[in-house]
């Protein structure tokens, strides 16, 4: 039309590119790199400690629990520690960069809280011998792999809490069908479902557990859909081994007892809430930071228990029968009476068969961490495949 268009186009385009770049910068600032907070002064005499989270600190589940651990450390140590966190850090190449930045900032101990950070943490430990690296849920040491001596792994026997919640589920079910909605068929989840089932069978030998894999760590719609599929197949008690509370809606709509995982939903779903297995990360992390301060830190491959208050149970729901509550309390007392290092007291109470009837645990046997970390079978009474 006229002779200027190309000129004005170029101007428009560059404005557009600048606008896009601004959007991009905002997005990045709003995410991984943006949020860190600190407590205490940064002057000498304080140790810097950092946490890396896979989700947002308000996810109502996994990351929120880890952040509570960080806050516990900050409150307990006051000016002796300066804590930092990075949230929404994807499991992948990005985490190596995040770790390096934290080291450059002078952090002396770094807690990484998702399994997918493991390789990057080990590599960083190799390259930075003066910094301590703490890998939650890591399994390399237990599986006998070679790791640097300034690298440690820690987790807890969540399955022990699940055994106790299983007792309540076994008592709650009327038609002996408990529906379990679970994320991925990995040893951590499989041993949890096995313990839950054994707990249910300990009070109700006829209890059957029906497992549906959602194949997602996080998809509220699929999590709800899986709970509905279990109810339509006859389950009258639900356990969702997932983070979002969407399965609770299904329980509420059908008025069925509901067990969550790793978060307390007793307030929002009081009409159906039973309890959940929970993790308490703070005390362990506090002791590790203290050891960095006084120079006694050592790799310890920690596996927390109910006895040392690392794992526990969320608040019981108001609909849980009094007899059920005392049965759970009695089992918790049993766990606490043992040695703090004792976990999995129930596995060897009897011969245990897998789904095919083959004996996988003999009476009196004690399972090692390695047995737990490699568990790949479902016990008898579970319907569903441990392969997914």
């Amino acid at each position: 039309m006229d002779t200027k268009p190309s000129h004005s186009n170029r101007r428009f385009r560059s404005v557009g590119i600048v606008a896009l770049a601004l959007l991009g910068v905002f997005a990045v600032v709003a995410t991984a790199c943006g949020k860190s907070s600190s407590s205490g002064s940064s002057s000498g005499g304080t140790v810097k400690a950092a946490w890396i989270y896979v989700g947002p600190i308000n996810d109502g589940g996994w990351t929120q629990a880890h952040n509570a651990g960080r806050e516990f450390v900050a409150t307990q140590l006051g000016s002796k520690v300066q804590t930092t966190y990075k949230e929404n850090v994807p499991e992948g190449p990005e985490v190596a960069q995040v770790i390096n930045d934290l080291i450059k900032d002078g952090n002396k101990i770094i807690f990484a809280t998702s399994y997918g950070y493991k390789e990057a943490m080990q590599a960083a430990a190799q390259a930075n011998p003066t910094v301590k690296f703490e890998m939650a849920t890591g399994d390399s040491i237990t599986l006998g792999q070679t790791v640097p001596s300034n690298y440690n792994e820690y987790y807890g026997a969540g399955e022990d809490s699940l055994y106790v919640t299983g007792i309540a589920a076994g008592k709650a079910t009327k038609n002996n069908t408990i529906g379990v909605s679970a994320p991925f068929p990995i040893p951590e989840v499989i041993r949890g479902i096995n313990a839950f089932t054994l707990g249910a069978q300990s009070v109700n030998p006829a209890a059957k557990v029906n497992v549906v894999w959602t194949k997602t760590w996080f998809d509220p719609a699929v999590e709800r859909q899986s709970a509905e599929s279990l109810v339509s197949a006859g389950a009258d008690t639900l356990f969702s081994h997932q983070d979002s509370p969407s399965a609770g809606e299904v329980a509420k709509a059908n008025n069925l007892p509901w067990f969550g995982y790793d978060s307390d939903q007793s307030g929002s779903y009081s009409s159906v809430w039973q309890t959940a297995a929970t993790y308490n990360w703070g005390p362990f992390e506090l002791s590790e930071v203290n050891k960095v301060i006084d120079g006694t830190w050592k790799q310890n491959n920690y596996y927390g228990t109910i006895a040392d208050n690392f794992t526990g149970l969320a608040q019981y729901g108001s609909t849980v029968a009094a007899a059920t509550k005392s049965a759970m309390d009695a089992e918790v007392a049993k766990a606490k009476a043992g040695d703090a290092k004792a976990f999995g007291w129930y596995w060897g109470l009897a011969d245990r068969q897998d789904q095919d009837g083959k004996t996988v645990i003999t009476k009196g046997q004690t399972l090692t961490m390695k047995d737990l970390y490699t568990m790949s079978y479902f016990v008898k009474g579970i319907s569903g495949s441990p392969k997914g």
Partner: protein
Amino acid sequence: MSINDNIFVVIMASAIFYGTPLVFASLGEVLAERSGVLNLGVEGMMLLGAVAAAWVSTNVGGPAFVVLPLAILAAMVAAALGAAIHAFLTITLRVNQIISGLALTIFAGAAGLSSYLAGIWHLGQSPVAHQFLRLDVFGLADAPVVGPILFHQTLLTYISWIFVLGASFYLFKTRMGLHLRAVGESPQTADSVGIPVVRYRYAHVIIGGSFAGIAGACFSLMIVPTWVDGMTAGQGWIALALVIFGFWRPDLMLVGAYLFGALSSLSLTLQARGFHISTAFLAALPYVMTIVVLVIASNASSRRQLGAPAALGKPYEREER
């Protein structure tokens, strides 16, 4: 077990419930695409809608019949604002539509603006105060077979059916719909007969965005129903695929949305009933279908035959006429 626990009934009822956000989101996208603007920001706009709806339902006092429409309205406005950014960038500034749409999803989506707002608003600690529950329409919810499928859905599902009818009528039976399609096919020609191309594109990108907002509200008010970061979990991308899958026609897109819902339910329902087939295969089916359709639709001439707007993705510059 009653007939309504039959696997077919369960899957169909589930397909419609979980397909509802896909219906809204893909309808919104088809309006934008019919005007010639591809908007890959659906996922981000849905999350903006979800967070706005959750805020209203949590914080606005009043009875459900007041709060829920307000929540939907807030979702539409929030998502439309996101769409307006895309419209400005791609229509006025003529930025590449793919890049702008992706930027919108990254900016607004999981771990972006929507999560930031939810954080400062303290959402997600408990379920929203008001939600869309399943209705018992005409008292037929328990009727054999048709009850759970057709008469036991939420109001949002019934609204989505009206939207599909309305969008079909608008696109193919009204003068404005004809103009819209002309803008998407050949903006030069449309412009030459006096159709305001830029205004059409702005209007449909923004209104389309507001539909994505309703889709997001389906998650925070109906499916979950609370705020969870990134709660749409990729459904916005499926909505984009559905537009192609439905050949840019609202009625076929509705069928596609329910097919996706059915396939995701199939895998879970079969597992719950003890059929041990590969869940990985079933879970992959919707995506296999999408790839097949994309392959068919990838060739320019077949795209035309399938109904793809010819000017889709191309910025319109009047000077180049």
